[in-house]
């Protein structure tokens, strides 16, 4: 989780990712960010997020994103 928060905070130092739950719906992150997040997660966790998992629900909060990573790591 630490590493993920660091990735996100690097992109948006102004956002509190521990509490935000509307990153997509609140237009806080955009398509530039999604592409960066996916590639940095790949570098950091060696996890490839498949296309069908790139959906708003998985990107609305750091928690949801972290749960996705853990799920993909287990598979």
């Amino acid at each position, binding site marked *: 989780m630490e590493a993920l928060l660091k990735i996100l905070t690097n992109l948006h130092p102004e956002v509190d990712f521990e509490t935000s739950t509307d990153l997509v719906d609140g237009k806080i992150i955009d398509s530039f960010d999604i592409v*960066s997040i996916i590639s940095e997660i790949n570098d950091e966790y060696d996890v490839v997020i498949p296309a069908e998992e790139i959906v708003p629900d998985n990107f609305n909060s750091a928690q949801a994103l972290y749960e996705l990573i853990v799920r993909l790591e287990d598979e």
Partner: protein
Amino acid sequence: MQRNILEYLEETVRKYPDKTAFANESMGMTFQEVSDASRSIGTCLLKKGYQKEPVVIYMKKHPHMIAAFWGAVYSGCFYVPMDEEMPAFRIDLIFRNLKPRAVICDETTCEQMKEFRDFDGEVLLYDEIAGESADPGLLGAVREAAIDTDPIYIVFTSGSTGVPKGVAACHRSVIDYVENLTEVLQISEKSVLANQAPLYFDACLKELFSSLKCGATTYLTPRSLFMFPVKLVEFLNEYKINTVCWVVSALTMISSTKTFDKIIPKYLRTVAFGSEVFPIRQFRLWKEALPDARFINLYGPTEATGMSCYYEVDRDFEEGEPIPIGRPFKNTEILLLDENNRVPRPGDPGEICIRGTALTLGYYGDHEKTDEVFVQNPLNPYYHERIYRTGDIGMRNERGELVFLSRKDHQIKHMGHRIELGEIEVHVNRLKGVRSACCIYDKEKEKITLFYTGDAQTKELVVSLRKTLPRYMAPNLVYALEEMPLTANGKIDRVKLLNMAQSKKI
């Protein structure tokens, strides 16, 4: 001879009155509805005394916004598109430059107008003016007097001094562009397009005029879909989209996430792309997914009305090899000129300069900047002939195709947007607690990286920057430095900064 872009609309509405022209996920406007609304808006502007002047269209991305564009043109005015997501600071800058007397808004943006202190003109509400009855006599008189070198629109592009430049284009150059573009893309009434570009850039002319001239249908793709590749392809399939003209980053977002393993945009037959280099590995994924589609690389600056060159991909490319920008549209010539304004030898680089009717009118209200880049053709000492110096460096390969090589200044292409790094730096330098600032672009990682010195906190700096810069210009990475590295001449050492960014040794 056609003199006015509205003749496209008038011809198409005769042929296909009930066909959908512009639509989004929840509504669509037929050609008849577009025609009625724009004639009403044109009449209303005329009755209020607006003519031959900029009319700002400040609305959320919607088919109504497009009808408002043609409404302004019907009145003999020129439209200036602005986006609800543009930061207020930038809109204020544009208002100051333009001094418009009228702005057309929708319900949402109408409220925001109060924030702009530099605007003291009239705010018109789309819903109120689009329903008024049109006055054919009034509209006819304006048309009769109009000439084809009158402006149609002004779109703003990044300026290195911190102030965006407004490029004004006239009927003649747009008609020249539209005729050639629709021929190259083979647009017909059967074409169904999904627009990606914001309506405040000239890039959207590809779709708008494909509809206007040929009776094609254009869907405005919701911006949020460009974050979610599977949903995006589902959208393309739902509306049976067969033609897209997108920036490369929108296409690679789909291919790089392996979306094609799940779903194929099965109706797509024409994929035009541009504004950036298409990485060959990603291009191949597209080619494999759509073996029968035509892939066309487009190249051109806003200053020459949209696109000037095209190349239909007809062979394989090695990884790392650039896809050529090919050859100019008909009625356009590309000159390559070296530092001494001479034509370089075949295979040698030169600045890409454009000659032809497609040249725009230059920068609105700024003769000085216009004269810097719209210049007399140095190869022609005999009569007045303007060329536009793009600042792009290109060459001709052994096949005679044009290839883009680089820029001669600090302008970059980032996610399809044209950005002057200098403009970002001006905004940073303006902030309290910043001593010096420099932006570099890491092409490999596609990241704008900002370095600064001073007491300003990174977090506060990012927050204030987002208030003044459009989203796409916001630096992706920000680093505070103790000292700015300098070259022997005392200039900021950009090469060293780039190395620092790439090695992450900061």
